[in-house]
């Protein structure tokens, strides 16, 4: 704990935010479904880290427990996501998200 306390919480905050933003930009810039999926994962993980940090600093286990929940959910999400990507690939033979826009207007 003590050595951890030497790093001020703001650092964690900034670091995680940056990570999160990287994830967001990844989502925005990339057209490849898989990469987007990974970016989303990055976002979520940054949040996990943040939560962990907070819980450590407030000595409140809830945060870390929540992190586990998130991991579970994220896993499920990814599983579904990959399934969907596979599905898309079957039909369109590409995983570019722009290929599919039949539905509009």
């Amino acid at each position, binding site marked *: 704990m003590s050595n951890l306390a030497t790093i001020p919480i703001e650092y964690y905050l900034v670091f995680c935010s940056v990570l999160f933003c990287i994830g967001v930009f990844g*989502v925005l810039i990339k057209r490849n479904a898989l990469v987007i999926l990974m970016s989303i994962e990055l976002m979520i993980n940054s949040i996990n880290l943040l939560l962990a940090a907070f819980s450590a600093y407030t000595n409140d286990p809830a945060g870390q427990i929540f992190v586990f929940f998130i991991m579970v959910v994220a896993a499920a999400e990814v599983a579904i996501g990959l399934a969907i990507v596979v599905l898309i690939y079957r039909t369109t033979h590409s995983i570019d*998200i*722009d290929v599919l*826009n*039949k539905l*509009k*207007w």
Partner: protein
Amino acid sequence: MKLILILIPLLPLLGFLFLGLGFKSIPKKVTSIVGPGTILASFILSIITFIHLTQQAGTQSSLFPHSDVYTLFSWISIGSLDISFSFLIDPLSVLMLLVVTGVGFLIHVYSVGYMKDDPGYNRFFAYMNLFVFFMLLLVMGANYPIMFIGWEGVGLCSYLLIGFWFKNHEYNNAANKAFIMNRIGDLGFLLGMFLLFTTFQSLNYQDIFSQAKGMTSGNGTLVAITLLLFIGAVGKSAQIPLYTWLPDAMAGPTPVSALIHAATMVTAGVYMIARSNILYVLSPATMEIIGITAITTALFAASIAIFQNDIKKILAYSTISQLGYMFAALSIGAFTGAMFHLTTHAFFKALLFLAAGSVIHAIGGGQDIRNMGGLRKKLPKTYWTFLIATLAIAGIPPFSGFFSKDEILSKAFEFNHVTWFALAVGAFMTAFYMFRLFYLTFFRAFRGTEEEKHHLHESPAVMTTPLIVLSVLAAIGGVLNIPVLFGGENWLSGFLAPVFADAMAVKVQPAALSHATEWLLMATTLAGCLVTIFWAWRRYVKQENGLLPDEAKRSLLVQLISKKYYIDELYDFVFVKPSLWCSRYLHQVVELRFIDRIVNGVGQVVIWTGNTVRYVQTGNVGFYMFIMILGIILILFFNILI
């Protein structure tokens, strides 16, 4: 008494309902009895009323003496507005009753013969009865609204009867014209009533007049009221500028012209003003306007009459000018004179029309006097009666017209000399065109076609009897009011005096004329008339070519006059065409292109927006994400950093 009064108008109404509802099923015989019968009955009843009235003269203690008000039921009553269905019986209304029912009856009888072969026989008598009903309401009503009911009712009947032969659109147009012009007047009447009500809080004659008595002469409101009412009179009695419907109204069957457009309806205006004499006496400004209008009309119409060739049109214009006379009389406060002339005019003008009718009947439809002539031998009865009527209207003693005209003229002279002169000239013109008509119709050889010549025959007794009766009346009608000059005692003046008492009291009486002057005036007018008659004789009986002056030779003025001063064309150009154009413009441009387009425009704008907005939905995930992030950033930005 009350019952009698109710019956007087009710009988014609019942007649109408019977004939109207019975429709085609009723045999002509029945109709010929019911039609005139109802009128005869109410004529008799009117006489009874008359007697009753003369007997109880002076025994009355109501607001103005010799008058009774009989209320049947309350019609519209809200707060202070209480219009009851009530009849007023006083000398004035009784006089009108007698004229309407009497002349009306004769004309009905005449019609039995005249309309004999018409398919719409029953319809005709139904309408005629209805007309009499409304006319009686008009004269008997004890307040303005009741008069207005009659006022509009007679208008309706005149519409129906002018367009009686409705297959011909010319006639229908004439009918519409008549109704609409009357309506213009009626609006004036209506507004007049409103102003009356707002001023006097009542519409009953008695309340109004008794209050009006107290008001100062020249009171602005009174002037307004009288003017508005006068507009009504102008419309109904065919004065300038609303006279053009009357000549066209000749489209109707001749008895109609006789009854409605000569004897009774058109004189309603005169009656109305005579009825509201007090109001008019108290507003000199109006009186002047009336005077000017009346005299102009008298001369104007007379001048047109001179150059007309349609026998009925001539009589129509002469009616207009005679009505002008009556209004002139009213305008100088000679109410008795006006009513006197109204009565005599009813006699001789009805007679003229009926006689003309019998002429037309004889010829078989033709109305152009240029194709007549020499009928003296063929139709003696008609000839004589027509002669009497003509003499009467021309003001030749001792026929009725002479006395009535003379009274007006002398009163006019009292009033001012210009008026007198104008009216005198009018008298001369009248004499001229009437005798022109007379000569062209009855003298010289017949100018019509051959089969017309064969067709020529005297009308049946059923038609000629009324002619004779009327001619008697036209001849001796003058006795009603023989002036003191001839040792008479001005019976009519005496009879009507109570009605006009208040007015006379208010009115500034000019110095009465000396007998000498009266003789002089009489002589002058008489001489003038005789001269014009002689001239007419020279021109139309003696002179060969004078008969049918060819158009080319006519001077511009004459052509102008013979084209009736192009008044119809003028109205058409000034009122009819613009309003039609306006109608089209409003509909095509304002309505469709402007208002409606704005309404639709709103909707279209919304839809257009919707159509454009929906293209934001590109269906591209990346784009969606981008917008979302934008949204997130904006929200965070505005909520946290600011």
